[in-house]
């Protein structure tokens, strides 16, 4: 059992003018797989390194099992970490790399041997124990780095972009392997990535960060369906959410240049009006898969359609991505490839506003 609490944590580097992490609060439960995701420089590594004890915490408290550990040395926090560049000791064999921490902690020879072989079996590197890291492939090195974390049997794993040095294909398979490893070992894990796909596929809970601040915490489904603000909406999901600048007028939203006018569903309209957005500007966000080209949809919702030109059309197998344009506004629609459209064609598309998101253009917070 292990519980991790981050309470209003701030970080300011000595040589920096600004805080790199601001008011970071999060409770991590036992066995949870939490992913920190966000654009480069948003403070993910800084946060995970503060948890590891590699960076000082400027303000706030870090609790492990209810005990403040701000001033504990890394080795006393009982945390294992996997680094982006693996950080394998180049002059040591795979076996020595994995056993180094155990030796320093004065485990018995038999115990070390058993743990290393056990970990090697889990990561599938039993035949490579005598090799030096230089004689391993990138994927194998990554496995050794995982193995080094496994042997320690630490209750908390930290991983800082462990897959970013691997090629795309290997990354997908290692992703599955790490997920499998977590199911097997049930170790509480904090995983850092800037790849939203990794975050969505691996996480129990996602923490989305920007400029050192948490934007939203939730399950992949939650942050996908109910983004807390425009940034989360745009960051999560691929291809990204489309945004339109619109004005709410009576029961319709109008494009500023009158290229289209859409009827707002009743429930949504009530909320928008009650929050005082009648006649005001809004940002409409709609995901590519919520834009439809099927005739049935267009017949049923004739008031939710836009006439567009298709610029580019990408066939991706079962689905097609249509790069459309209305006025000078571009957007992407993801449609069934049966409805594949030739580039240059004029097309009527329907926007499923029940799945749409409305954001305040100033605060960028979600209204509905």
């Amino acid at each position, binding site marked *: 059992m292990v519980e991790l609490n981050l309470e209003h944590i701030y970080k300011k580097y000595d040589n920096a003018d600004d805080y790199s992490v601001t008011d970071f609060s999060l409770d991590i439960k036992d066995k949870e797989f939490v992913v920190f995701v966000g654009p480069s420089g948003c403070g993910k590594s800084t946060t995970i390194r503060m948890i590891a004890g590699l960076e000082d915490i400027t303000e706030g408290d870090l609790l492990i099992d209810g005990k403040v550990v701000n001033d504990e040395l890394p080795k006393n926090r009982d945390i294992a970490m996997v680094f982006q*560049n693996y950080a394998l000791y180049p002059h040591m064999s795979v076996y020595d790399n994995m056993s180094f921490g155990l030796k320093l902690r004065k485990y018995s020879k038999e115990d070390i041997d058993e743990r290393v072989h056990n970990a090697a079996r889990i990561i599938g590197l039993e035949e490579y124990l005598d090799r030096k890291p230089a004689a391993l492939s990138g994927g194998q090195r990554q496995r050794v780095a995982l193995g080094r974390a496994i042997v320690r049997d630490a209750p908390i794993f930290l991983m800082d972009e462990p897959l970013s040095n691997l090629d795309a294909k290997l990354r997908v398979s290692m992703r599955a392997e790490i997920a499998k490893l977590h199911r097997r070992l049930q170790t509480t894990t904090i995983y850092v990535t800037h790849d939203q796909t990794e975050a969505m596929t691996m996480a129990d809970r996602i923490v989305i960060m920007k400029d050192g601040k948490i934007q939203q915490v939730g399950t992949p489904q939650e942050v996908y369906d109910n983004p807390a603000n425009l940034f989360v909406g745009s960051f999560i999901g691929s291809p990204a959410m489309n945004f339109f600048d619109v004005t709410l007028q009576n029961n319709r939203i109008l494009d500023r240049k009158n290229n289209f006018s859409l009827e707002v569903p009743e429930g949504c309209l009530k909320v928008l009006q009650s929050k005082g957005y009648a006649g005001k500007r809004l940002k409409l966000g709609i995901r590519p898969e919520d834009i439809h080209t099927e005739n049935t949809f267009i017949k049923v919702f004739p008031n939710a359609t836009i006439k567009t030109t298709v610029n580019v059309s990408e066939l991706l197998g079962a689905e097609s991505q249509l790069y459309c344009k209305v006025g000078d506004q571009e957007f992407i629609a993801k449609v069934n490839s049966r409805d594949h459209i030739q580039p240059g064609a004029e097309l009527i598309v329907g926007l499923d506003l029940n799945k749409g998101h409305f954001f305040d253009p100033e605060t960028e917070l979600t209204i509905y």
Partner: protein
Amino acid sequence: MKNNLMKKLMPYTFIFPALLLLILFSIIPIIISLVISFTNLDITGLGNWGAVKFIGLSNFINLFHDSLFLQAVGNTLFYVVIGVPAVIALSLAIAIMINFGQNRFFKLMRLVFYTPSITNTVAVAVVWTFMYNPSTGLINNILNQIGLGSVGWLTDQNVAKIALIILAVWKAIGLNMLIFLAALQGIPKDFYEAAELDGASWWQQTIHITIPSLKFSIFFVSVTTLIGWFQFFDEPFVMTKGGPLGSTNSVALFVYQNGFQQSNFGYAASASFVMFAAIILATLIQFKLQNKQQNG
């Protein structure tokens, strides 16, 4: 066809000037001195080539019966055995300590330790001769101040060698420290972070991460330092002339004394060849050890 030949010749034309200099000023003199070492060439021989005779190995045989030479060999071995490890250990230790900090103080220290190696040996030796002076020198004065007796730094047979080693080590630290510093800065930071999480103390990190990561620069420094100390010359030449009673004489100085002071060129050449062979042998042994360590 012709083009092909040009292509093949091209690289040789590029290295030709360097090769020419090497042959002219290194290879040919080495060969000539090897030839001389088998002759009785001396000052009369220079004027009258007819008097020069090949005398086989007798120069070499004489050398190993010459107590002055044997003493010089013993002294040189002493210099090497004490000096080389001292230079490596001290410059490594200082590099590690200087690498520890980033602020101005550590930058200043870098300068402080580097300065001796860019100053002229003779000038430095003169200053140190003053400092080593038994009655008026700085060092003995300090020793007296703290209640210790005077030491005959350059006059006591047992101490003089040490005095020269201290000076030479002090002078050699700078450059080697710089080599180690450069290598230290190339060690990725995350090795230390991983080791810290593994529970390694600062000392354990130094032993298990830093030193193994510096393997190549340690090897480089030991080879160059070893060669340098086998040829130990400047310090005894300037400060003691090999005395007192030959106790600081080195093989290089012995070669100088015989060749340029007594004009026994053949004899000096043979002594220099013994030194040459010893250096080659020591370097080969080091390479072998290094290879073994790498593959083992």
